[in-house]
């Protein structure tokens, strides 16, 4: 250890040779690829079966979200080597991110509440939702957007 010490910056006292091989990297790559393909398949089921029951729709989306969180875990832990750091250092990064739990919950709840309130008290908005949009043929013949 000590002969390494002076060649590295003084903050790094112990050099951890955590990745002696590239096997783990490629294993993670295949894992990410397979998870992405499963996500894609689930995303497409919503396209193939547009009349899917609401609860099933929500369940499929829930599974996709969980799979994305798994991908995030593997990227951070293996590719970014956070899993190899000292526990206290990991905690200084992960604990503040816990704020997201409140952040997501509170704001989505608020968005939903806003929708319900407007549907109750704003007849115009409710009516717009039942009207069909004018066919715009957005496949072709659509005039390009304009830069203001």
């Amino acid at each position, binding site marked *: 250890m000590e002969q390494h010490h002076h060649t590295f910056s003084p903050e*790094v006292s112990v050099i951890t040779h955590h990745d002696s091989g590239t096997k783990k990297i490629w294993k993670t790559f295949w894992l990410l690829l397979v998870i992405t393909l499963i996500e894609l398949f689930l995303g497409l089921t919503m*396209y193939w079966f547009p009349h899917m029951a609401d609860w099933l729709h929500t369940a499929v989306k829930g599974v996709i979200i969980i799979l*994305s969180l798994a991908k995030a875990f593997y990227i951070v832990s293996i590719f970014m080597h956070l899993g190899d750091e000292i526990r206290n250092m990991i905690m200084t990064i992960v604990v503040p991110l816990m704020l997201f739990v409140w952040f997501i919950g509170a704001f989505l709840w608020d968005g939903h509440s806003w929708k319900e309130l407007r*549907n109750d008290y704003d007849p115009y908005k409710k009516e717009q939702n039942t009207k069909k949009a004018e066919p*715009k043929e957005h496949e072709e013949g659509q005039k*390009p957007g304009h830069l203001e």
Partner: protein
Amino acid sequence: MAQAVPIERKWWSGGKSPFNVEYGKLMMWYFLMSDAFTFGAFLISYGTIRFSSNSWPNPNHVFRAFPFTEANLPLAFVSLMTFILIMSSVTMVLAVHEGHLMNRRGVVKWLAWTIVGGLAFLGCQAWEWTHLYHHGAWWGHNPFPNANGSQASTNFSNFFFTITGFHGFHVFSGVVINIIMLLMAWNGAFDRRGHYLMIEKAGLYWHFVDLVWVFVFLCFYLI
């Protein structure tokens, strides 16, 4: 992890970093944490607006084009973009790995591939933006109807271009950082310094870009 620290070493007694990481690397982590909150705020505001809407455009109907073909291929192109970014993340880890081994040639080789991947991703994004633009989508313009057939607001386009644009800007700056790292490695700057810790920090940033894409892909294309 804890096994890297010998028991007799007293980290908190002064003179040593309690986290056993270089200052710059620790600060890169804290920067990325703050950037995660920036992207999180963007995506959560998108989610809030989407939750407050009675209906929303269906991504499978919006994102179904592929270059050089007229076929209806929902999500195919964005899957290719995702694959490119994951692949470039792998080449970046391999560059960091070669850096640990002090192998300059290996670092240069894998960094070059990472840059190629980043440029390929940016090219794909440019194509996708151009395609959507020619179909009438832009900030303030949304030609795509809601999933239930009703008229959609411009929120969909506004959030899509703002958030993928902000992510694309991160990819762009990541490519610039990687090019600088490549030139420094090529010139032997890290060999003279005695370590390749700089590659690790650039790598952290690059992986973060990939990490954000996981959530952009999730929020805009999948659900």
